Every structure is written in C-alpha cells, then in structure tokens.
C-alpha cells in the first residue's frame, strides 16, 4: 500500500486475531477473529466515527492504530507511517483517550498527572506550564488541578483524559468511547470539547455506540459489526439507506420471545429490535413505507399489554440497527 499524503489514517485489509486458551489442566487454544479485513480511510481534519456494538472490533481497531497491537494481516498507516514498522513516528503524532475510570494516577493530583505525562510525551519544559494551563482551561478543570484524581467525578476524570491526550498537541486523536458512563450534562460538555478540537483542525477517530453522538459530531461514519465494516458514509448517507422505510415504536409489557419472532414474519417487516426501558419493552419495527402494518403487528402482540404506538421517520439509530442486525 502506498501512503496517500491527503489521508490522516489509511487502513487496508486489516485483520487481527487473538489466541484464546480454555481449560485448566488440558488447555486448548482457539483463535478469535476480531477484525476480518477492514478497509477505511480518514482525511486530514476529519471527525470520523466508528460505530458498532460491544465486541464488534472498535477498540481493537483503535489499539492497532495507536500501535498497541500488531495487525495479523493487512496494513494501517497514520499520517503516512506504518503502525507496525514505524511505531515511534506514529506515537509522536497521535493522542489516545479512552473512556472509563482507568488511565490516570488516582493518588496524584491532576497537575501531577499532567506534568508527568508532559515529560513522557516530550513536551519541552519551557512550554509545559502554559500548555497545561491552556488545557485545564479547555477541559474546564482550572482551579481543581491540585486536587487528587481519586476525588474527581467520572466526568472530571474523562476531561482530564482529554487534556492528557492533547498535551503534545497531536494532529491525530483517537477517542475510544470517551463519553462512556458520563451523565448527560458531562457527556454534552465533552461533545462540545470534541467539536471544538475538530474545528481547531485535529483529525479525530471517535468510537461510540451512541447514535445521536455520532450523528451530532461525525462527518463520516463506518459501521463495524463482527469484525467487518458493513457500511461507510455520512450520517445522511446512512439514514438514506432506509429512507424508504418507516419505523413503528411499540411500547409493550410481557411480550414473549415467540411474539417478537412472529413480528419478523409479518409482511413488509424488515427488522425488529427490542429495548428494555424500566418495566416496558420498546419494540422497534422497521418496515417498507406504505405497508399496512399496525393491525397485523398488534394482532401478533394481542396477548401482551400494549402502551404507546408511535409511527415515525427513521433515524441514524434505525439505520445502525438495520445494518448491525442484518449481519
């Protein structure tokens, strides 16, 4: 593969498998294929989303691109540098931020964490102090930097992660589910920070399974499922894949698996998914637009208690469910 200078990230036929051992006395090794030859590219300055359910291969992709895992086959380049053979060159140009509580020295203050990582990421001593101040301001932690990280809320930790990932001002940022576990206000603030970074010219690869997040932030999206990319395009492109459909949202109580299964065989139904919201099951039925659906659907659910029934136009989440559900 030749490096394309216009591209920040170039992935061609990337595969990654893991050996998994089973058993205590007689260990049997098996191979788990996490990536099955994925291909995609990200332009410089683009905010690109990688969407997929848990275990689809999102984190594996990011770990290969951040040089933490070697590919089993295929190639991946970041700013023209091969992630397997030119790890050092890649590492100086990327920032890696992951979601959750880990990745910080809890017993130290935010300032101590940032100072240490500034040294590790080779930020010149003279520029460290202003850079740290600037980043604390950016992520809204100014004034709290001398408190120990173990006293921080999850949102504050996540913002500190972002500051840590930006210390060396990398042109490419990998954000692996950065809003994981954040409250709605914290998640919104973080999305605003991510949007500002993209406006400042950073190339960003964002993994998430929150559709609205991808819809709001990403210029292009790749949907990954079971180690393969099943669709790539702008949020509008992906939505247009199911623009000829309609979605019926049915709130039900006590719908059995058999009833859900019967819904799938109703004429015109393309896909059925179920979400649990407190006591209720929310059944999302995608079907061809214009199909006469309501009566046949409700007939199959007659033994369950039905709440609200709302027909609505499809969203990106519906497109995602359709893509992931069809693999």
């Amino acid at each position, binding site marked *: 593969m030749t490096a394309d200078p216009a591209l920040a990230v170039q992935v061609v036929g990337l595969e990654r498998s893991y050996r998994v051992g089973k058993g205590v006395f007689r260990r049997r090794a098996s191979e788990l294929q996490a990536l099955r030859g994925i291909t995609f590219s990200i332009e410089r300055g683009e905010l690109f989303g990688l969407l997929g359910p848990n275990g689809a291969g999102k984190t594996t992709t990011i770990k290969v691109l951040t040089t933490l895992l070697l590919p089993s086959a295929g190639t991946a380049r970041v700013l023209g540098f091969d992630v397997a053979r030119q790890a050092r060159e890649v590492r100086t140009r990327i920032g890696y931020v992951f979601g959750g509580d880990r*990745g910080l020295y809890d*017993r*130290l203050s935010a300032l101590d964490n940032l100072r240490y990582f500034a*040294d590790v990421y080779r930020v010149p001593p003279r520029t460290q102090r202003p850079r740290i101040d600037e980043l604390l301001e950016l992520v809204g932690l100014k004034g709290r930097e001398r408190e120990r990280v173990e006293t921080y809320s999850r949102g504050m930790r996540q913002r500190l992660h972002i500051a840590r990932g930006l210390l060396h001002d990398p042109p490419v940022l990998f954000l692996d589910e950065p809003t994981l576990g954040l409250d709605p206000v914290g998640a919104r603030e973080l999305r605003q920070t991510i949007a500002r970074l993209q406006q400042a010219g950073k190339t960003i690869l964002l993994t998430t399974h929150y559709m609205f997040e991808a819809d709001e932030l990403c210029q292009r999206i790749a949907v990954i499922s079971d180690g393969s990319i099943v669709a790539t395009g702008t949020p509008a492109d992906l939505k247009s894949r199911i623009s000829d459909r309609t979605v019926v949202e049915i709130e039900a109580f006590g719908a059995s698996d058999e009833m859900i299964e019967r819904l799938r065989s109703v004429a015109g139904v393309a896909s059925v998914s179920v979400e649990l919201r407190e006591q209720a099951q929310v059944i999302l039925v995608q079907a061809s637009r214009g199909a006469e659906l309501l009566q046949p659907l409700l007939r199959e659910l007659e033994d369950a208690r039905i709440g609200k029934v709302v027909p609505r136009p499809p969203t990106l989440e519906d497109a995602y469910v359709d893509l992931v559900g069809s693999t």
Partner: protein
Amino acid sequence: MIRLLLSGLRVHFLQLSRSAVEVVSITVWPIIYATVAYYMFGAESDPDVLLTASLGATVMAIWSSVAFSAGGAIEIQRRLGTLELLVAAPIPFGAVLAPITIATSAIGIYALGATLLWGRLLFGISLHFEHPVLFALSLPVAIVAIGMLGLILASTLIFYRAALFLGASFEYPVWLVTGLLVPLSVLPGWVAPLSWLLAPTWGMRAIRESTVGGSPLSALAMCVGLSACYAVIAAVCLRAFERLARERATLALT
C-alpha cells in the same frame, strides 16, 4: 532524559508515599532485617563485623524492595490502565520503567539510615567509615546497579503477568548467592561465578570496603560495568517483550 528520570522518580515516590501498606512495609522491613543480622553475627562480636552486618541488611532491603516493587509497579500500571499509555508514548519504554525500578532501589537510602540508627541505638555499634567519600559514592552506585537489575526483571512483566511471582521468588536466592546472608566462602565453588554477575555482590563489597577498609574502587567499577550491561540487556528484553505484548495483546490484561 534526566528530567524524565527525575519526573518518574517523583511520581513513583508520591504514589508509594500515599499507600499505607507500602509505607509500612518499606519502614519496617529494614529494621527487621537489621535485627536478624545483628543476632546472627552476635552482639558481642567485633564492631566492624556488626557494622558490616548492618550494611548487608541494607543491601538486602534494597534488593527485596526491587524484587517485589519493580514487578509490582508494572502490575499497578497495568491495573491503573496507564501501562498502555506509557507504552504508546514516543519514548523508549525503558526510559519510563527505569525511574520506577531506581525509585524502589533508592528506598535503600532510608534503609541505610534506619539500619545504622537502629544498630547505634540498640547495639551501640560505632559508625566509623574508613573512606567516607567512597562510601557516599558506593551507595548511589549500588542503588542504580540493583535498580537496573530490577529493570531486567520488570521487563518480563510487560509480557508475562505471572513474572510478578518470579521477581518475588528471586528475593531469597539472590541474598544467598551474593553473600548478603552468609559469606561466599562457605558456599559451593560454583556459586562464586554466579555471584560475580549480580550487582548486589559488588554493591555490598564496595559499601563494606569503604566502611571497614580495603579497596572499594574495583567493586565500584564492577557495579558501574554491570549497570551498563544490565541496561543493554534490559533494553533488548524490553524491545522484544514489548513486541510480543503487542502481538499477543497482553498489555491491557489485568
């Protein structure tokens, strides 16, 4: 690189100082070793022998700290989720790891102070140093040499999680083989070449000879030489183990 080393030492010391378990074990163990050593050599012995015993206890404490904590520190990084971030940094991983192992080894400075004070207060040993300047040089040289040996042990932990126990299992054999517990002369002949390869042997010899008299320079030179060799071996091991860890995905496993 020096700034990174100092920064790493500071962070690691801060981390250690905020763990009650670490602080208690670091504080108590050297005193226990020193007490055992004084009674092994007998309170009525020659004052020089008692001083040597207390210095031996110091080197034992340094090695124990390295054997346990160097490995433990990698495990802590792995548990905190910082190991991946440090490996993904644009500097050789050895430059991140060395301050951790040297910090654990530098705990020996406290061990020395505590051991000598304990010996002075309880057993009345006289604190006379034959070559005070060389003694002051011997201790940091021995600390760095033992820290670098710890770096080799720690490098295996990037790949093998079970190496934590490997480090711990080296504690007692190294005490024995390097003559910290009993003189090398009472051990079988084949032990001697083995002891020459281990920094605590020469660290102990340099400290002892600068204290009770002798020529500590050759032992100091051996410590410096071994430190350089350990650094090269550790760099090769780190490179190989980092690649294996990237291949087999063991960096994030806890």
